[in-house]
């Protein structure tokens, strides 16, 4: 995507940058039980030293199985959660500093997975869409607000009169449109989309994805796109990161990763995509389950499920190494075994 040459450093810095970000959740039992059982605190490392950068007007997608930390990264990226380690930068500034300023906070927003939970059931749609407008004082007076809400609803293919209704009067796809209208109300530049289509029917998914791409092109939006659906990801992304148990195991240009996957886990995932040309042929199922992040395997977290694993994989955590324009965290790739 062509990038407009802008002079300031803030403008040339990536929209969002994560530098060695970790997040540990406290999953210990209550204090009294812990004391009685003489055990320590228990931490769940949902995100483990993850780094990525999202250039302006581009889309980075993160994929992975349930529980791999995708949604935690989404929440970290808009400041709903604070990182336990590392730093997230928004336009070159630390995210917590950026979020303290309304002018910068206005420029990021989030679209949630479940459109049945992300809209307040007691609010009329026009109030839901107008909330960011009010919060940032972007419109003055009822007439201007009404006009702006109508324009936002029209932008996502809803009628202005829909603003008088309540969320429960809409279908899932329409609700997700309302979510998008709300997310766009403050004219953000950076949108985190946490599985925005996984709760929708397949026929509606494409509509929503096309709408989002269309809006991205028109408004120059930057997306962090979280999904477990590889077909959706291919449709959306410029860059693709594959996550496994809190770590990014492979990250690079989306087409390269799709065409020449390097990490054994990425290969497994891509092989599992349903494909008309593959009907009737035997497939290698993704064996085993994601191990518990409370007690992750030693060394490379993927080694219990990996065909290429050897002694080194069981002991040493692989660092990301460059393989072409893709970064891969795998000993087998680094050693040239894969």
């Amino acid at each position: 995507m062509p990038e407009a040459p802008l002079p300031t450093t803030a403008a040339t810095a990536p929209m969002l940058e994560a530098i060695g970000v970790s997040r540990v959740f406290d999953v210990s039992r209550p204090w009294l039980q812990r004391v009685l059982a003489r055990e320590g605190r228990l931490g769940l490392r949902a995100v483990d030293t993850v780094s990525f950068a999202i250039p302006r007007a581009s889309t980075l997608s993160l994929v992975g199985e349930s529980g791999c930390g995708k949604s935690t990264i989404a929440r970290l990226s808009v400041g709903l959660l604070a990182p336990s380690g590392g730093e997230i930068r928004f336009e070159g500034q630390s995210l917590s500093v950026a979020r303290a300023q309304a002018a910068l906070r206005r420029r990021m927003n989030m679209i949630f997975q479940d459109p049945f939970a992300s809209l307040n059931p007691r609010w009329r749609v026009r109030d839901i869409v107008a909330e960011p407008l009010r919060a940032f004082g972007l419109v003055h007076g009822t007439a201007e607000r009404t006009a702006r809400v109508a324009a936002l609803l029209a932008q996502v293919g809803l009628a202005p009169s829909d603003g008088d209704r309540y969320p429960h009067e809409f279908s899932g796809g329409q609700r997700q449109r309302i979510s998008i209208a709300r997310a766009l109300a403050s004219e953000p530049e950076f949108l985190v989309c946490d599985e925005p289509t996984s709760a929708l029917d397949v026929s509606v998914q494409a509509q929503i994805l096309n709408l989002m791409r269309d809006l991205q092109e028109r408004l120059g939006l930057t997306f962090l796109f979280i999904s477990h659906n590889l077909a959706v990801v291919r449709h959306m992304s410029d860059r693709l990161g594959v996550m496994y148990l809190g770590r990014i195991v492979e990250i690079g240009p989306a087409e390269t990763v799709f065409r020449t996957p390097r990490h054994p886990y990425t290969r497994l995932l891509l092989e599992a995509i349903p494909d008309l040309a593959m009907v009737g042929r035997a497939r290698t199922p993704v064996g085993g389950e994601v191990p518990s992040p409370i007690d992750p395997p030693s060394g490379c977290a993927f080694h219990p499920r990996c065909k290429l694993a050897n002694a080194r994989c069981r002991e040493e955590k692989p660092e990301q190494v460059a393989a072409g324009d893709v970064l891969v965290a795998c000993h087998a790739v680094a050693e040239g075994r894969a």
Partner: protein
Amino acid sequence: MRMEPGTAVAETTTAGRRAGWRDSDLWYSFSHSPLAIGSATVGLICVLGALGAPWIAPHDPFNVASLSLLDSFKVPLHSWSYPLGTDEQGRDMLSAIMYGGRVSLAVGAASVLFAVVLGVAVGLVAGYAGGPVDAVLMRAADVQLTFPAILMALLVDGVVGAIVPRERHEAVQFYVIVFAIGISRWPQFARTVRGSTLVERGKDYVAAARVIGIGRLRILFGHILPNVLGPVLVIGTLTLGLAILDEATLSFLGVGLPPTEPSLGTLIRIGDDFLFSGQWWVTVFPGVALVLLVLSINLLGDWLRDALNPRLR
């Protein structure tokens, strides 16, 4: 994509909204429940009779000039002027009951309001803040729950009686009773609201508000409060019946409202003295009025609970 924005369904006119109320599930459930209609009718008659007492009561029981001892202990239906008979001072029982119901309702409503405001606020804060704040507030509620309303009322009454000078006693008695009943009834609201708040605060619409930097108080009162009020309405209705009974009990025991402002409970207590001398109507009719009022409120509350429960629809 919706291509016809002007379809009839999408139009929401004033007429459409009124029809929408007629079409609502709650109205359907109400109009199809004879019990709900019956109790609403009885309750409405009680409430209107009580609230409208100064205008529609046949006599003014507090106007000493209109009382005559010659009219004392008239038997019910003896004359049309005194349909429910008179008490020992010649007061019309029907009028006394209407005025008494007014006092009972006022005490009940005020104490429920007090309990709702306190309980909802505590529940919201405890549920949203979590951690030690939650623990402290909820243990306080647990302690409160171990005191029955009567004990609490006697305690507050005793303390206030000791602090406030005797001549001001009658003036503050209303507030003492309201406080005593309200304070013993708030934990139920707090617990319910805390539970719902715990559920609501984890929902994504709260996260969506936090992303754009909406403050805690506005999230609490603008977003979460409207979503936790359903159960409060049900418990509030049921508690209104209980609060009226609490007040009647206290007045019957003599720690309630002063005889210058008799509630239904006071009337029952006064009439109790004449039960064995044959003037049963002086105590029975206020009692019947109390039963009708509380029963209709409770039945309405029960219906509301079922009607608002999505799993029972």
